[in-house]
């Protein structure tokens, strides 16, 4: 494409298939703690990788 550069293709639907294992770090939306906010979490689901 000449006018559009796609940085990231669809990821959400794909992640629903094997998601929800809960092994990831707890997030903290108030971010007053050591834990991550959700956008920056690492996925720890081996099946998804």
């Amino acid at each position, binding site marked *: 494409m*000449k*006018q559009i550069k796609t940085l990231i293709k669809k990821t959400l639907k794909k992640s629903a298939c094997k998601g929800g294992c809960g092994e990831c770090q707890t997030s903290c939306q108030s971010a007053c703690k050591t834990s991550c*906010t959700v956008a920056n979490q690492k*996925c720890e689901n081996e099946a998804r990788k």
Partner: protein
Amino acid sequence: MLHLYTQNDVNIVLDVESGSVHVLEPAAYELCGLINAVCDGDRADCCSPKTIFSEKACPAEFKDKLVSVYGEEQVEEAFSELKELFEEDLLFAERDYEINLPDDYPIKALCLHISHDCNLRCKYCFAEGGDFGHGRKNMPFEVAKKAIDFVIARSGTRHNLEIDFFGGEPLINFDVVKQTVDYARSLEKEHNKNFRFTLTTNGILLNDEIMDYINREMSNVVLSLDGRKSVNDAVRYDVGGNGSYDRIVPKFKKLVENRNGKDYYVRGTFTSQNLDFAADVEHIRSLGFDQVSVEPVVLDKNDPLAINPEHLPRIFEEYQTLTDNMSDLQKKGEFFNFFHFMIDLEQGPCVVKRVKGCGCGTEYVAITPDGDIFPCHRFAGMDDFKLGNVLDNFETKQELVDYFKKSTVLNKPECEKCWAKYYCSGGCAANNFNCHGDILKPHEVSCEMERKRIECAIALKALAACDEE
């Protein structure tokens, strides 16, 4: 749903439901904006993207507005490329799948209030000087031990468990921290668990022995410093009114030098009194720290330090300054991590995690020195939210758990309409409750800041991609 914005001269389109992110040249960006406007479901004459992109050529209603600026060839090219994205489900995508949330959640993370006492009296402390309004006390080891038994018993098959030593100031009760770590480690193998410990400290009590211990045992450590000495000491001081800066900065430097690459954050709070907080981030960076978080204070709106709607324009300017500074560092290849601009667009959290957020009250709970269980540290001491007590039994009050189980983006009408929903997960339940008396109703000031931060974070990714070319 799309979110279109221009930042640092880059035109960005986020396709919310697919998670795709595109960078567009001006003709395509303007055309995308025109199409998006007529696809707004609130419009009486709302048109569907499907109808628009079933056309072979760009419909006249859009083309007529753009052709004088870009010429017919460019407009048609832009239409054709947008159409291709639409056909690949990368633009105007709809959620055509179920997000299956579990009926029951294992508890996998504890905020262990190892001490409800503190050696500082920070002006903005949400824990009311460290005691959460319930008197100064330390957690006895017996309670900590029960808390570890509780999380093992309630964690089901979850392998990774988190224990965050929190306060007050956890180092006031350091011996119990060590005993608790030893006890948890002694149970890992038998129960097939992996404990990750974290600790948040104001730094006053750090010494060589404690620093070595933290660097050995804590997978993450949060070091509280608000930035410039004048800013820090105006709000972070001891009972005698003496600021903490000079006492803690040398210790934080030493601790981080010996951290051997493990995670840490130097974490600050900004208030209405230092809205120029980008200077505080820069100051912390100048001290040699490259993992920094400086975050808005959480206070009642009537507090003089509170962040309120009138402060937002200035805060957005500061986030922009931070974006510019970080973009410069990116270009130079220098590592610097600002916590709230961290985003992993590709291998980040799954959509299930994104809609349910922090798991407060379901997967994550706080335990006070008396053994009381609360949905999280922000609810600690609020009697209506007491879920149980680990000394009594390992049960948690089902009606409260059910209440917190509802706290997902899917149950928050305002969030369902928001482009940022998969990045913020509906905000902080405690902020929402404190502001509206309802964990499902978002705290708007937090929403505004979160949206801006996500824009900055994505813009930095886009700038990095453009720089690579």
